């Protein structure tokens, strides 16, 4: 049985957080969907709140400290990414964006990604489409067609609303479909490997 690694990035700030709750539901459904396809999965969760200062420091210093680097390596090395943010001022939160700002621009190229967002009001329901999708398109990630948005009313009654549960399962199925059968995630090329272009070629302006 192949074992996949799923990285989960949650930008929720409170505890318990509805953002983390959505992330957990998406993760459980994805693990289930992979298992149905005969693949195991291990899950690594990155709670960005724990890296809030690390991220601010990275902005000014230009480098990730040890703790943040571990989180970045987790995300970059995973077979799939589930990324969930609360909606702040009609978009992803600054904390969420900062994490993706400090990644190398090629770090997520080709990575299967499932996007989720939470908000207090359903009026933000297209935030996945108008804010998150363009960001991950820029990063050249492969984002599944179904983005999952959950407003306060979707959690009403303590359980997950039936239509939300349906969206979670559909999105998780799409992510599992993208991941299964693909070769395991490869690390980005090592910049310190022996160069493939010889220096003579560089001198000729090639």
């Amino acid at each position, binding site marked *: 049985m192949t074992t996949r690694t799923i990285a989960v990035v949650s930008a929720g700030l409170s505890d318990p957080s509805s953002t983390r709750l959505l992330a957990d539901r998406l993760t459980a459904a994805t693990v289930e969907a992979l298992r149905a396809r005969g693949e195991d999965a291990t899950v690594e969760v990155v709670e960005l709140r724990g890296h809030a200062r690390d991220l601010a*420091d990275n*902005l*000014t210093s230009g*480098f990730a400290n040890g703790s943040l680097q571990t989180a970045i390596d987790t995300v970059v090395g995973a077979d799939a990414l589930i990324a969930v943010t609360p909606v702040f001022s009609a978009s992803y939160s600054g904390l969420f964006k900062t994490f993706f700002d400090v990644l190398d621009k090629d770090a997520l190229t080709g990575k299967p990604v499932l996007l989720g967002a939470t908000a207090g009001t359903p009026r933000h329901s297209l935030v996945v489409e108008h804010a998150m999708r363009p960001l991950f398109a820029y990063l050249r990630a492969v984002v599944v067609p179904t983005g999952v948005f959950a407003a306060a009313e979707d959690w009403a009654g303590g359980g997950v609303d039936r239509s939300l549960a349906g969206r979670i399962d559909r999105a998780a199925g799409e992510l599992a479909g993208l991941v299964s059968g693909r070769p395991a995630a490869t690390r980005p090329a090592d910049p*310190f490997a022996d*160069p493939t272009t010889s*220096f003579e070629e*560089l001198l000729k*302006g090639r």
Partner: protein
Amino acid sequence: MQFGIFTVGDVTPDPTTGRAPTEAERVKSLITIALKAEEVGLDVFAQGQHHNPPFVVSSPTTTLGYIAAKTEKLVLSTSTTLITTTDPVKIAEDFATLQHVADGRVDLMMGRGNTGPVYPWFGKDIRDGIPLAVENYQLLRRLWREDVVNWEGQFRTPLQGFTSTPRPLDGVPPFVWHGSIRSPQIAEQAAYYGDGFFHNHIFWPPEHTERMVEFYRRRFEHYGHGSADQAIVGLGGQVFMRKNSQDAVREFRPYFDKAPVYGGGPSLEEFTSQTPLTVGSPEQVIERTLGFRDYVGDYQRQLFLIDHAGLPLKTVLEQLDILGEEVVPVLRREFAALKPAHVPDAPTHASLVAAAGGGHDSTVHAADDVTGRTVETAAQA
């Protein structure tokens, strides 16, 4: 091993008084600092090149030429010479001239410059940074090594029958280092030519330095210049010292907190633990500096940044006293005891002349285009 200081030549207000030196004061302070470096027994003074405020170092060989006249032993270097936006012809001329003025006490460190707006002022584009560094440096080498250069490239007007004057002192061009924080292509360039590689080794964790130096050493050996541990490596580093480390931390903190490159992010304590920045007693600086060898191997040049972020001249001169009296003598002794015999010292003009089989005057006299007669042959006729 060579020890010295390097400066970026910034005019920064002293955060404890709010007062910024005038440009005149800063230019003179660079000279005072350099002369003091020789007085306390350091080997190298390197200054940067910038063409925008808050810097006063747009014309490095002017300052270095004056320092050359006032010193006996100090090696004058750069940190860095902008190989991307400076015409290689001008670099060839300026630094060959400085060689003659300084009796050979000159080397250079090439750098690209990372300030985007500067490039267009000189008709260049920062996106061409690496190709500019590659093409311009190749031309610079030819200008120093060939009396008559015919050249055509991508970034500069072609040269036909061009002779860069004066020719290098004793026919031997200055040694060149290449500085880069994270571009393997520049370490590759240094390795290709068998030149030195310098990592500024401040602001970032040492793992970055380690990877770049390891790559440079591996490629130096690949290109047949010697074994990897014989490659010529230089490191930067930033220190602030007082007899008691608490005093050093207390005095340096406001400069750290307000420094454009440091302030607003990780604390002084975090930065000193995560990067090579050392703020403490001379003993702590000695111990930390000796530790650099653990991840770059035996290396040839250590330069310290000490006049940064608005530190007053008086304080900088005190730092030089501590370096010269307490730190560098110990480092010199300890590093020398550790270095295997097959690891070379940093090249100097004398060692390069010896390697070339002796110096020779390489003056090129003007020749008549048609008859080929020169001033000398005409005088003999």
